[in-house]
């Protein structure tokens, strides 16, 4: 976890998203503005959490960054280069540096392939091993890394539990030694007790290999735990962006407040006295132009020029309380 006020200037930007828009069926009647003008940066070595309700555009954001989709407009820079301009011959290298971990432990592994072939898929594509023996050795190494045993290598995915499958997916992503990993709800399909295993694993390898994460989730307590900074997404736009503690302890945007008030906690007394805050989305749909404004250093909120003062006052109040 990080200190309250990140100093972006000192840190290297690994991913930079600028005014990204991603529309599906653009121009047709069933047009969906899955992402509608979002901008943010992810610094090297950090975990950037992205939360929001279903359909808010989280997965689309992740998939645009990894070039599964071609953006409608806007730019995505990875390590200083615009990913839409990567030449065919450099594409393979890009595919090595950025990897993805998927949500559904049942859909993310090919049911007809053995675990070792699943994990070695990247090794084969990028010719990272010279022969079968080396391949097996590397697969075993990766199995060790994610805490699975070597004799799992010759088994098929359906023989594993959800948590084990998720670890196989992680091993597959790690095989190509990426620098940046997009984890799209990697734990939401898992049991509570298994979630912790996977989260710990992700943190351990992050430390070990100096990885940068984009961690997508709708479970806010887990995101808070794993992320350094968090962006809150709604209807394809970012509502609020700040350090994890700021977002949780000092939320400014009404949507964030509403979202936080809905998080169930394993505490009956708190639950009995919980007051959910409603959210009136007129603040998004009144037609006024809004963009992310820095309210206090490092804390951004989607606002008009006029609203900034109000948010600043609210932020100040929080800090007086502390």
């Amino acid at each position: 976890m990080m200190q309250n006020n990140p100093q972006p200037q000192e840190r290297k930007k690994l991913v930079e998203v600028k005014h990204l828009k991603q529309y599906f069926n653009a121009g047709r009647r069933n047009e969906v503005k899955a992402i509608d003008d979002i901008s943010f940066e992810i610094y090297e070595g950090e975990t950037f959490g992205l939360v929001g309700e279903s359909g808010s555009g989280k997965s689309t954001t992740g998939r645009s960054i990894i070039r599964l989709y071609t953006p409608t407009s806007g730019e995505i820079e990875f390590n200083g280069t615009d990913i839409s301009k990567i030449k065919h011959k450099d594409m393979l290298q890009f595919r090595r540096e950025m990897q993805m971990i998927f949500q559904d432990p049942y859909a993310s592994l090919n049911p007809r392939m053995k675990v070792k072939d699943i994990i070695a898929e990247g090794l084969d594509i990028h010719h990272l091993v010279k022969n079968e023996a080396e391949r097996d050795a590397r697969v075993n190494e990766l199995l060790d890394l994610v805490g699975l045993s070597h004799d799992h290598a010759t088994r098929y995915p359906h023989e594993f539990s959800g948590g084990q499958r998720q670890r196989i997916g992680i091993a597959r992503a790690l095989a190509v030694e990426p620098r940046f990993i997009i984890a799209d709800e990697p734990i939401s399909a898992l049991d509570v007790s298994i979630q912790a295993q996977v989260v710990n694993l992700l943190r351990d390898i992050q430390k070990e290999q100096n990885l940068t994460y984009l961690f997508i989730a709708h479970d806010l307590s887990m995101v808070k735990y794993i992320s350094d900074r968090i962006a809150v997404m709604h209807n394809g736009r970012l509502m609020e962006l700040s350090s994890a503690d700021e977002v949780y302890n000092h939320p400014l945007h009404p949507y964030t407040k509403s979202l936080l008030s809905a998080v169930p906690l394993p505490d009956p007394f708190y639950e009995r006295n919980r007051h959910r805050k409603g959210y009136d989305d007129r603040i998004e749909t009144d037609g006024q132009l809004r963009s992310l404004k820095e309210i206090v250093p490092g804390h951004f909120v989607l606002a008009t020029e006029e609203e900034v003062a109000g948010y600043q006052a609210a932020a100040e109040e929080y800090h007086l309380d502390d």
Partner: protein
Amino acid sequence: MADNTSDIKLNADSFKPVAANNVDEQEKISAPSLTFFQDAIRRLRKNKAAVFSFWLLAIIILISIVSIWWTPSDPNAQHVAYANLPPKIANGSIPGFTGKANVGGNIVDKYAAAKVPKGTYYVLGTDYLGRDLFSRLMKGVALSLLIGLLATLFDLVIGVPYGIISGWKGGKTDTIMQRIIEIISSIPNLVVVILMLLLFTPGLGSIVVAMGITGWITMARLVRAETLTLKTQEYILAARTLGESPLRIALKHLIPNLSSTIIIQTMFSIPTAIFFEAFLSFIGIGIPAPNASLGTLLSDGQKTFRFLPYQMWYPAAVISIIMIAFNLLADGLRDAFDPKTQE
């Protein structure tokens, strides 16, 4: 709740802490490892009808293969003197295969009447030209199976790639390819065949060409639909993010996962093709004389059905058995491959 625990012996050691087990140990999988196909076959084995159909078809196929080199007698050789002999086996002691027939109320030994030498008999009798029906049936089944095989070939060579490309590419390509399919499938099969007949002579060639034009449509449609859903599966996305090329994705991920659809559909399209040929031959625009096919045998038998029913019974029974067996096997395969019916 009332576990009876009085018989548990508790002693001082009972409450000694035990070091937690090796985690590896717990994650061991003890069940035998089955691939998807092994598992499917295991389930297929439980389906008696499908297994029986499988062996029946295996025998029929074996006999047909034999018929390429050997038949009891030449299927096209005519012995006008021996025309319309009823079925007879060995000395004629088996009911139904006695070589005798009812002529005007009297049981007549037709073999004796036709002065067939002793020791010569026709298991399924002869037709109006004195050709051995058993040999003709063997040849006919072989031809029908050949047509089934060709239908499979069209399914695999045209239908599967067509469906994969259409589904995978999506967008405009998909729209155009689907329009083409709609146009082709809107023309009735019979019209296509008749058009073929205008260009070619009737025979295996024109049947095959007609099948080549229309037979693979269902396969292409199924494969496309399946590809559309597979394409958004996360393991395909994972392969893409790893940099796998579309061709390799098709070979490594799509085809293995399409295989059950493909196998099942082939099992359904084989009998369709066989029936199609039989139908064409039956109405006289299929396999030309003197070659035998199930269709021509039925057509010939039908002409004398009232007097010499055996000439139609046997081909009709055989084609029915083949159709039912393929369908039962296909049903069994579908159940075996469909994870929803898994116990």
